[in-house]
């Protein structure tokens, strides 16, 4: 089944098929790694929307990437609670270990590092979401092992 067909099937799960645009974009992003123009064409095709509309929706939400990202995603929460227990030190440990700044991807395309707003693990901070799975609590000394894990996963 093509992505467009899978998207069309998702649309039938809702009283109005447009509601499926969020899960459809997620599906497309899982296939492509990010959301290139083809993704918007296929999602649009499956739901009878325009690619521009789909892109407009995607651009609103933090979890959709409209530019390429690395094979792995490391997201450090730097909101209040995690901030109070040392999130900045954790972030800087990742910056040192990966050699990049938040918002950037390692040269080999392996890891994208970024900061995020409250991830919902506040009492167990600092929370780091690694490929969408939470690590909590994370201290700077845990960082080298996490990065090593990502490097050997490839």
């Amino acid at each position: 089944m093509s992505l467009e067909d899978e998207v069309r099937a998702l649309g039938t799960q809702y009283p109005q098929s447009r509601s499926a645009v969020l899960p459809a974009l997620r599906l497309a992003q899982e296939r492509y790694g990010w959301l290139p123009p083809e993704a918007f064409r296929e999602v649009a095709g499956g739901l009878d929307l325009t690619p521009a509309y789909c892109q407009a929706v995607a651009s609103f939400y933090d979890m959709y990437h409209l530019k390429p990202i690395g094979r792995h995603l490391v997201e450090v929460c730097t909101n209040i609670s995690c901030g109070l227990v040392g999130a900045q030190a954790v972030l800087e440990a990742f910056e040192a270990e990966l050699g990049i700044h938040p918002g950037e991807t390692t040269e080999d395309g392996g890891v994208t590092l970024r900061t995020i707003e409250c991830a919902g693990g506040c009492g167990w901070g600092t929370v780091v979401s690694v490929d969408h799975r939470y690590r909590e609590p994370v201290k700077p000394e845990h960082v080298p092992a996490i990065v090593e894990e990502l490097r050997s996963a490839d």
Partner: protein
Amino acid sequence: MPIEAIVLGGADERDLTQLSEYRAVGGYDALTKARAMEPDAVVEEILTSNLRGRGGAFFATGRKASFIPKPGQNPNPVYLTVNADESEPGTFKDREIMLRVPHRLIEGCLITAHAIASTNVFIYLRGEYLDCFEVVRAALEEVHGEGLLGGVTIVVHRGAGAYICGEETALLESLEGKRGQPRSKPPFPAISGLYASPTLINNVETIATVPPIIQRGGAWYAGLGVENSTGTRVFSLSGNVVRGGNYELPLGTSLFELVYDHGGGIPEDRKLKAIIPGGSSVPVLGADEIHRRLDYDSMAEAGTMLGSGAVIVIDERCCMVQLGLRVAQFYMHESCGKCTPCREGTRWMVQLLHKLEDGRASQGELDLLLDVCDRILGKCLCPLGDAAAMPIASYVDKFREEFQEHIDAGRCPFGGESSLEGLFAPVDQHTHDPVAQVPA
């Protein structure tokens, strides 16, 4: 003093993610009981309990359910939407509820659906909560397998990262497949909600409280907690505290008891400086207010709110101007952009707070910050603007000398040693074209 957990009841002793375990502690008995009751009788029981919404608005749950038109009064299907978009900084109670008692949430959905004659339930789950998605989906499969759904469909709809989608009308917009920008009210969701149809929206914790209320009676629940704030609630404790975590306690419990008796107090014997009692959107309390009680009236008396139940403990190492900046950056990032005062106002607040923190602000600019807060308060399309302006105004109100010191000294008095020093915010990752700046 033994405190009986209700929402999280039984979860310490058994793995309640398993249907068989949940049934062993009486799970789904309340559903059987509810389905034998008239829908109006179920609403009546919730009204009797005086349960109030646990998302943050604290609106009487039974009353909200009573706004839904009865069958025959409206031609459209009725929808139940569960707000599982938990994103208020400091809050992680719904996460724990979904991870540990998913069946109690599902049972609550089915009982509530019966109460409003709905056969369509959507759980709008924040996209980042992958662990909750997997647990809830597995629990739903068990329920489906056991034939407990009774003709009701429950769809778990994952969000994609947007704090504003926790606002009920923005949630509906997002669920309809659009950018999550809030709608004007009226019309209210009870009349015109999802797909312009009558819709009841409730927080995860609120729905998960429904089965115990039906099982043991609304009068029983109303006897717990304090007047105007009945029952228990799950408080999320975090920040500079020894044992951060979720604690289910009766409403009316003091902040002192939560922070010191349950939370173990502040690590390394540091001094308490401030407490955020209900998530980042509520006004801050000073250290001398630690004996205040966590209930609606006590918090209102203190000039703040129960909010999402997220209690954030702040010790003496934290610069309150830096805290203000980080909080303002959050709201600037999450502002949907639809209405002028919030879109522009949150941006102005960040710029002014940057100047204040760097010691580059003039005296007039501290007043200007408060003026910007005034221009937002009460004038926006949705509560996000207020949620940004109120806490910032409270930091200035309670810690004015600290703000003044930044101005007088021309730098942050913490000299780089504040616990929030250099904290990098997501809003700084996005590159912007030059926009209007507060003059240098």
